[in-house]
């Protein structure tokens, strides 16, 4: 995977995604063969979401290949086994799935890049077998805003928008900066929501509500942003097509605004043509691209390509960030764009 050029990796990713339906059937057949046709026994709950599982396995496998990162697929394997374990589902199926996939894909992939796929699947099987059910968290007691963060999380989980806003404004009045508030309170609470969902302690509905509250607090704080530097230029920030995670991009927009950039935030899941148009309208010097899911890699590549094709290589500069680029750290360099995967307050 390390030596394969990006175009070959994208080609392989594309090939993998197309196998979804067939793979779902194959996994189903092999699984049922192992279960000795349990569907014959009435009353047995013998369903598994094969189509969904096959799609997810392939999406992350393709994303890891496209992003050129074995570690990204291992990360998926660990995450998926934690999700399964917390829902009392057998994580052993996962290891078996990856083994089934390796055998089945053997005859279906061209030799170029097959090695990378095989290695990812083996690494994934290994990671799944060894996965810890404990979700990695943050060490407590590091932030002076920790008390506010804990309170904020409780409040957003109850859907109390006003109280969440009040808490945040109070922290600003107490002298905490917008960047500290964003990272240590909002980001940390959002990450915690992810852990709570992953470990089956909150429902999707609760996560949606809490996230909606955080978004509304962000909107209320915008007028309080006072640029601390002289004007830096015009910036556009967007999430890629297919990506639903929007808060990261929103926070980046505001944090760059505080640095003196005039930032137009487009939201996420924005079609390429819309981004190109906004860049022209806003006469942008800088484009920020946000991506969270590994399966967003092809859409990131296509967006960068579309922007370069329209405006050339010099301007706007392109800066990428979000979990996708943490999982696939080589990608930014290969695309010739800048990336920021560390703490935004440090740049």
């Amino acid at each position, binding site marked *: 995977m390390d030596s394969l050029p990006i175009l070959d990796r994208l080609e392989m990713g594309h090939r993998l995604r197309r196998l*979804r*339906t*067939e793979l*779902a*059937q194959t996994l*189903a057949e092999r699984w049922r063969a192992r279960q000795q046709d349990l*569907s*014959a*026994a*009435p*009353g047995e*709950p013998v*369903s*598994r*979401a*094969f*189509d*969904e*599982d096959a*799609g*997810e396995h392939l*999406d992350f496998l393709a994303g890891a290949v496209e992003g050129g990162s074995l570690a990204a697929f291992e990360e998926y394997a660990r995450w998926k086994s934690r*999700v*399964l374990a917390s*829902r009392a*589902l057998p994580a052993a*199926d996962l290891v078996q799935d990856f083994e089934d996939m390796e055998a089945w894909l053997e005859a279906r992939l061209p030799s170029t890049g097959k090695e990378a796929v095989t290695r990812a699947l083996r690494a994934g099987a290994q990671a799944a077998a060894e996965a810890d059910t404990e979700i990695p968290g943050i060490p407590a007691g590091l932030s002076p805003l920790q008390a506010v963060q804990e309170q904020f999380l409780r409040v957003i989980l109850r859907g109390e928008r006003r109280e969440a806003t009040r808490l945040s404004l109070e922290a600003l009045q107490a002298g905490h900066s917008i960047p500290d508030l964003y990272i240590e309170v909002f980001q940390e609470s959002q990450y915690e929501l992810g852990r709570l*969902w992953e470990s089956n302690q909150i429902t*999707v*509905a609760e*996560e*949606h509500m809490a*996230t*909606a509250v955080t*978004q*509304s607090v*962000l*909107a209320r704080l*915008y*007028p309080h942003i006072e640029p601390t530097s002289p004007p830096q230029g015009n910036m556009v920030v967007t999430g890629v097509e*297919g990506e*639903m995670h*929007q808060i990261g991009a*929103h926070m980046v*927009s*505001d944090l760059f605004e505080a640095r003196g950039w005039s*930032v*137009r*935030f*487009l*939201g*996420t*899941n924005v079609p390429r043509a819309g981004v190109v148009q906004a860049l022209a309208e806003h006469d942008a010097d800088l484009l920020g691209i946000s991506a969270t*899911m590994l*399966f967003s890699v092809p859409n990131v590549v296509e967006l960068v390509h579309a922007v370069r094709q329209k405006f050339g290589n010099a301007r706007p500069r392109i800066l990428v960030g979000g979990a996708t680029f943490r999982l696939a750290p080589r990608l930014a360099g290969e695309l010739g764009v800048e990336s920021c995967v560390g703490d935004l307050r440090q740049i």
Partner: protein
Amino acid sequence: MPSILGRGPATRGLPRPGLEVLVMESTELLAHYLQTSAVIQLVRATPEGLVTECNQAFAAALGVPRSELIGRPIWGWLVDPDAQRLRERIFTGEPGLFPQRINLSDAQQHPYTLEALLSLDSQGFALIGEPALSKEHALRNELLLLNNEFAVLTRENARQNKDLRKAQSELERVYDELKSSHWHLKKIQEVLPICMICGKVRTEEATWDDLIHYFKQNSDFLSHSYCPECLARVEADLEPKEEAP
């Protein structure tokens, strides 16, 4: 593995639109399958459409013993929204997924419709049931999109307001400047109150100021020049003097 956080990455976490809630009180088992799993295979058939395998629960929902279904054509149950296209695909052998509806009736003989997918591959067909999506689920996802959009619009609105406020305060500053220079202009255009004896003028602050000093202070609009007499004098001063022998 039950569906988590909505549907899988195929639909990028969003439900396929148009799926209806399926309430099947009398056929508990199939309902149970469809509620707990995202997708489940109901039937497999040969390329000619003859059933080779059938899910027990599905047979129960059809009200036919499973053994009797084997070998029978599946066409009878399907309400194909696009039969022509489906048949073309069957003949070309191109794989794909086709939305299908199946007409069933429950134990009280009330008809109901099951949403399903017909999956086509080289080995034949598989009929795959979709999970029953609740209205609540669909609404939740709609709400999510609206909420994202709302966040963008609110920020954009605030940003434009901020720009507007910046422009407004700049406007106010220019206006104040203009107003004060206008005041001076008006004052000079009016008759200047000047002392008949010493020649001092009265200032805006109602004090009395030396005429020259007053103009030096208040006359940005005056430019510098020489009157003919003074010019002559200045020129005379500048002419090279005869050096004393």
